[in-house]
């Protein structure tokens, strides 16, 4: 799967790529970020950050609140260009935010295909909605959807674009525990079917370890820690290896895992 690349910005001096490729077989990463710096006034939120995401790779991004996860994601989504550094991302991107951000004045199915070229294609919208399990809600206004349904609509809207890179900013944070588990399963399933690269921002260490190929921990404006997860899917929370990885991630987040239960 070759992702078509877009050269977004190329500012400052040429940075020598210091990172050795993680996967020798991947020729070009889907996302390539070098020396990315973002300032808000005097404050540097991202400090010369480097990150790669391989095509089709599922990456989870953890980090303390306010450390700059959303900032990075917004830059990758091309919503923020006030940056220094080098950023390359696929042309075909899609985003699902923490809030579903549906247009309230468009019926659910029209929201799903909004922005696609040509006339609104109802069949295509229905197919995407069916895929996330809410085909029967196609003709209602977004305001009557439940939180989980709205979030799934937002996911359908992202997937219908057949992205090479899917950016998810805490899409399950506002869901109840049960709905969240279902939504996580859904994302895992959709990812395996679509094969797009995913960057999932989350606060939930368990969620990260359940879903991702690789978990990044962000701290002080850079990727401070990285954990590759080679466990078989579907993964088992009770697996001792799972617990060990979770423990090490909690450590790197500065949370002693003795005090942290299965939250």
């Amino acid at each position, binding site marked *: 799967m070759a992702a078509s690349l877009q050269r977004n910005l190329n500012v400052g001096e040429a940075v020598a790529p210091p990172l050795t490729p993680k996967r020798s077989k991947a020729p070009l990463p889907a996302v390539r970020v070098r020396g990315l710096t973002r300032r808000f006034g005097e404050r540097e939120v991202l400090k010369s950050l480097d990150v790669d995401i391989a095509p089709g790779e599922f990456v989870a991004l953890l980090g303390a609140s306010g450390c700059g996860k959303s900032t990075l994601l917004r830059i990758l989504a091309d919503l923020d260009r006030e940056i220094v550094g080098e950023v390359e991302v696929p042309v075909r991107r*899609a*985003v699902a*935010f923490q809030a579903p*951000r549906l*247009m309230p004045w*468009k019926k659910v199915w029209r929201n799903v295909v*909004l*922005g696609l070229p040509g006339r609104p294609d109802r069949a295509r919208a229905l197919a995407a909605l069916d895929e996330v399990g809410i085909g029967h809600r196609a003709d209602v206004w977004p305001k009557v959807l439940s939180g989980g349904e709205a979030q799934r609509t937002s996911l359908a809207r992202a997937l219908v*674009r057949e992205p090479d890179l899917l950016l998810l900013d805490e899409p399950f944070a506002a869901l109840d525990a049960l709905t969240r588990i279902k939504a996580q399963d859904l994302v895992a399933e959709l990812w395996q079917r679509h094969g797009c690269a995913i960057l999932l921002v989350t606060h939930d260490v368990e969620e990260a370890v359940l879903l991702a190929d690789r978990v990044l921990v962000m701290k002080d404006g850079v990727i401070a820690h990285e954990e590759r997860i080679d466990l078989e899917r579907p993964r088992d929370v009770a697996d001792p290896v799972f617990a060990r990885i979770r423990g090490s991630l909690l450590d790197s987040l500065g949370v002693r895992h003795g005090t942290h239960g299965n939250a």
Partner: protein
Amino acid sequence: MSSIATITIAPGAVERRPADQTAKPDDLLARQRIEPVSTARHRVPRWLRRLSGPVLLVLLWHVASQTGVLPSEVLAGPTTVIGSAAKLVDNGELQDAMLISLSRALAGLAIGGSIGVTLAVVAGLFRLGEDMVDATMQMLRTVPAVALIPLLIIWFGIGEAPKIALIALGTAFPLYLNVYAGIRNVDSTLIEAGRTLDLSRSAMIRHVVLPGALPSALVGLRYSLGIAWLALVFGEQINATAGIGYLMATAREMFQTDVIVVCLVVYALLGLGVDFTVRTLERVFLAWRPAFSGT
């Protein structure tokens, strides 16, 4: 960078122990019974309930006239008014007058509304438009339209033009202000979502900005229509030779309070009709909105 906070405990706070609360006897607990919305409450249809107020008022008026509390030189009673209305309808005077007044209001609204909406869209969508238009409009809006009547008469004479110009002036501003505010206050997170969906600028305006501004625009329309009516009443005092205002002026000279009341009622009915139109527009175009409908 952590600071240490000094916690002071108020004297009363110490005594509030959980034990005191659990020990509260049952009969001291304030309770509320949540009543289900009963169907019985809605046996009287909504429109009938809404009608009861006005009907009561007319009844009171009738009684006051019949008993002589309200002499007919001050205000004719409802029966006299209905009689005169029937006569005016019979000889076609009332319909003609209504048609003329209504077309004045609509012409003024069409002109003023187009100007207001166009300027608002230009100012709302383009930085340059904002700089050029908005400051000017904000300055001009402080002048009450009615105060311009003398100027309008000098410019346009005393025919139809000054009346329509007055209505146009009055209606342009509320529409401008509300459409402009509506465009500027469109939820920025939705704009961002639109950008991630790769919407072109025109698609963004069509699918995000304008629909987002619509609720505010309809509020503006409502204000505008209210002002159109006011402006119509004022405008028709300018030497009218036809229309409801003319009918009223003639009646005034002949002390026909019944005809004056008929004219007032017609103004009110036209206003109600317009209000109904806006409500319908809102119902159709804002069906997506979680509106508060009350109980």
